[in-house]
């Protein structure tokens, strides 16, 4: 239950969620463990066996681009292999995650032993000044998992609906099923909300339901920036980065992808995070009353050492024909861990959150904060932890006490 007597909550008027693409926690933030032992990152000794049986150690040599090409497989069967280490036939019902199948999975794509080792690469903090600074200056989640051991669209569905309606793939063709999106709930309850895609040429990944049927919910990233500058930010904003390198259809030049999806340059994503952060941070009318959550939709096939835990079943079952594995999936286990950072001047520096979260925590949090009692939600969302309670400092941090960024 959210403590509404907290000063930060009494001031809170806006929640902004930025969902990036396809990077694991250890890949982006794992190196922070050396300096901040309370962050559950890498010791540097974690290994996976490669296809020749050689143990390969994680390596701090992640590159901004061109290293993870081809795009590491993160469809359900591949993630099953990554998590369970290779038991994909005649499965033992008592099998347990061991996080030892990442190299084998990446080998399957090109059959190059040397290239398969790159899936164990991770960034040093100096290469990701934005994400690592925000993680250590505000709150980082040690246990934020993707909702499904599978690809983007079913995972993003959990952020919008608290469920993927039984889907474990990219074929998410649902519409007006029993659970409403968080946006529809908020509008019905008289609250303001907007999904901001980057531009029309990048658009939204939430096509089948929301873009098709609720176009009024959408705006561009420029609309987000304008809303911030005019102090017209909705109570809840969900931001999608630019998913493609493309020419601006209006002749404005090159627009580089900022989603950090391999093989897009990670630096463009860092700069995009800065744009979102600065739009809030540099507006004294927004900064004291806005919380920003940065989360990644799924791990993108990249190594993480934390075993995804079991979770409340979702009430759906994906049959083997859908999972691509010998077994059905009961939505009773989370996907691989992803980076997630919560930002507010009411959060203590160096906060590390150890409770378990997943993307259903997003609609769960917004529902708790803005709507209250609301029963028509998935079992997963009802069971999901909410995160605004970490905005819990008795006084607001001063401007000089909060990080500032400047894009080159």
């Amino acid at each position, binding site marked *: 239950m959210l403590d509404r007597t907290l000063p930060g909550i009494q001031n809170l008027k806006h929640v902004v969620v930025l969902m990036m693409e396809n990077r694991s926690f250890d890949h982006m933030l794992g190196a922070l463990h050396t300096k901040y032992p309370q962050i559950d990152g890498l010791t540097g000794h974690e290994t996976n066996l490669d296809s020749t049986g050689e143990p390969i150690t994680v390596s701090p040599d992640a590159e*901004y*681009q061109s290293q993870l090409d081809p*795009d590491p497989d993160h*469809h359900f069967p591949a993630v099953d292999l990554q998590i369970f280490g290779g038991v994909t036939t005649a499965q033992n019902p008592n099998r347990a995650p061991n996080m030892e199948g990442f190299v084998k999975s990446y080998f399957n794509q090109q059959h190059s032993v040397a290239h398969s080792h790159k899936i164990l690469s991770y960034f040093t903090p100096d290469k990701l*000044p*934005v994400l690592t600074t925000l993680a250590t200056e505000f709150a980082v989640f040690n246990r934020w998992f993707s909702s499904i051991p599978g*690809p*983007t*669209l079913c995972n993003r569905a959990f952020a919008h609906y608290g469920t993927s309606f039984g889907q474990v793939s*990219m074929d998410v*063709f649902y*519409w*007006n099923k029993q659970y409403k999106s968080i946006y*529809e709930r908020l509008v019905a309850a008289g609250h303001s909300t907007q999904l901001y*895609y980057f*531009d*029309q*040429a*990048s*658009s939204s990944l939430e*096509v*089948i339901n929301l*873009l*098709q*049927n*609720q*176009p*009024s919910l959408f*705006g*561009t990233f*420029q*609309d987000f920036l304008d809303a911030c500058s005019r102090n017209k930010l909705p109570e809840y904003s969900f931001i999608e980065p630019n*998913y*493609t*390198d*493309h*020419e*601006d*259809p*209006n002749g*404005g*030049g*090159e627009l*580089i*992808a*900022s989603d950090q*999806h391999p*093989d897009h*340059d990670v*630096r*463009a994503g860092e700069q995009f995070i*800065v*744009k979102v952060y600065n739009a809030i941070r540099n507006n004294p009318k927004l900064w004291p009353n806005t919380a920003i959550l940065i989360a990644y939709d799924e791990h993108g096939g990249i190594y993480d050492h934390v075993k995804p835990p079991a979770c409340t079943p979702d009430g759906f079952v994906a049959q083997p024909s859908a999972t691509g594995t010998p077994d059905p999936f009961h939505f009773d286990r989370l996907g691989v861990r992803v980076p997630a950072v919560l930002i507010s001047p009411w959060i203590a520096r160096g906060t590390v959150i150890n409770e378990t979260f997943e993307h259903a925590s997003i609609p769960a949090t917004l529902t708790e904060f803005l709507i209250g009692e609301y029963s028509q939600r998935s079992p997963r969302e009802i069971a999901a932890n909410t995160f605004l309670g970490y905005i819990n400092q008795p006084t607001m941090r001063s401007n000089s*006490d*909060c990080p*500032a*960024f*400047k*894009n*080159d």
Partner: protein
Amino acid sequence: MDAIRVPAPPKQAFNMQRPMSDLIKSQIKHLKHVEYRLPQELRDTLPKHRIITENDAAIYIAAMTGLLLNRPAAPKVVKMPVKKSRTPVSTSSTRTLSLAASAEKKIASKSSRARKKKAASKKRTTPASVKRKKS
């Protein structure tokens, strides 16, 4: 606290000829699914190029998104007889969300249509703060 400088990607990081990822292929697949439900006269306005690269995808996605934002009615409407009148046809489908239905009512007014067109034109404007000049 001094501002932390954040490096930009180099020019060569941009590659709009990069083949589409599975993610973008799925986005296209979903948009095609929606496109096939649209009236032929709307579909005729869409670009017909082969979609191989990220920029190919962006051109189609921009057109489809613009069409979805600006079309006069929800796709359910196309299952009903098409009237020659320019007045948008309303739907009585119980599956249509109340929000969409209220949006249709607004669109039915001529002045509202004009406002929406103006707003859509604004949306097409490229975010100035995210542009990178062509080299």
